[in-house]
């Protein structure tokens, strides 16, 4: 098995012109990239904007990606450079945050940004997702919970998890899949049902 094979197969599809494959990569890494950018900027909305820029830059640079390193390592460097540049640019040209200015286009944009990402609804939805996932994990059988935690929290490979849990690699794969399915079953209701679903299904 080739390391990073799944990312490489998606990257190859993007290089052949399949933009949908890039959406898949964004879905996979968006949280990690935003978390990374938040080391440089505290504001989550600003971090998302920078992450968006980083993904677009990565897309434009993808024809030059040769696969010498893992895709995420490459993306990581782009995100860090984008964040550093954004911080330097912001420090050079500090924006006036006076939201009382009604004729200033920039103030409208800033208000829109705040409205878009820091509304109580957005924060509550994120809290609901966390609550749902934590509750679902707590309800998992021990072997499934251990497998998914070792994978997601500790970052172990299937082989390492198999050695830790003293079971075949195929069993690890099956356990992680079943754990995800159980959590996803609850999570899907929150994503599709909107606010308040966590309390109903909890």
């Amino acid at each position, binding site marked *: 098995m080739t390391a990073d094979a799944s990312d490489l197969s998606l990257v190859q599809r993007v290089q052949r012109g399949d933009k949908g494959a890039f959406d898949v990569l964004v879905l996979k890494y968006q949280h990690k990239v935003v978390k990374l950018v938040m080391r440089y900027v505290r504001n989550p909305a600003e971090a998302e904007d920078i992450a968006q820029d980083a993904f677009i830059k990565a897309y434009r640079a993808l024809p030059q990606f040769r696969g010498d390193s893992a895709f995420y390592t490459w993306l990581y460097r782009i995100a860090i450079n984008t964040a550093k540049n954004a911080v330097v640019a912001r420090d050079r040209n500090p924006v006036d945050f006076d939201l009382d200015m009604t004729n200033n286009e920039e103030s409208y944009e800033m208000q829109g940004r705040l409205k878009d990402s820091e509304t109580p609804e957005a924060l509550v939805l994120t809290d609901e997702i966390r609550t749902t996932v934590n509750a679902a994990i707590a309800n998992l059988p021990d072997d499934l919970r251990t497998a998914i935690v070792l994978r997601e929290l500790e970052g172990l490979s299937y082989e390492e998890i198999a050695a830790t849990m003293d079971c075949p690699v195929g069993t690890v794969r099956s356990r992680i899949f079943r754990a995800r399915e159980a*959590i996803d079953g609850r999570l899907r209701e929150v994503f599709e049902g909107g606010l308040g679903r966590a309390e109903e299904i909890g």
Partner: protein
Amino acid sequence: MSNEELESQLSAMFDDELPASECELLARRLARDEQLRARWGRYAAIGACLRGEHGVRLESPLASRVSAAIKQEPTPSASPLQASPGRGFMTPWMTSLGGVATAAAVAAVAILWMRSESPPQIAQLTPAANPAAHAPAVVAAPATEVANATVPTAVAATARPRQPREPDSYVVPAATTPGPVLMAPTELANYIVAHSEYSGPLMRRNALSALVGGDSPAPQLTAQPIPAVVTGK
């Protein structure tokens, strides 16, 4: 393939634990199947939640914003990663060689152009090219004067006076102090450059360094060819 098997593959692919051959097929399907992609996105949210990535929105419009922006972008035009094995190894070499070749070509064109800009000066100083121009000047000088002359005087006698509009030499910087002493190395340097294509780079550099540095190979270099020209006539 059953749905469960497909979703199991999806989970393994998300963890980068699916064989490359299966990744190919699933990547194609994933790029087109909205529901499968939504499930993939929720897998990512589960991971972020488990890792306790606080401050990160788990239901963020970031992916859809990037997707909308990408749709406006032109399609990448590179060939796929595995289209040519070893390409990653060769490319830096090819790039370096290309850069060196370009730099060499530019340098060669620049040198040829500069040489073509000052043909009269070089031709004037090349005995083989124009012996008649040098012979009378030497003949006009008394034999005792030739024998006893200091090098600068002898060379000054053979040197053509500089015209006001004549371009400066590209080999030696413009003289900072006027006088016959500095004229000799300049003219000699031009002479050497005129014949540079027949000498190796190391020899050429040594000769020029000696001239610029004020060493005195000049007497031998200038005094020898002049009598030969005279006697030849």
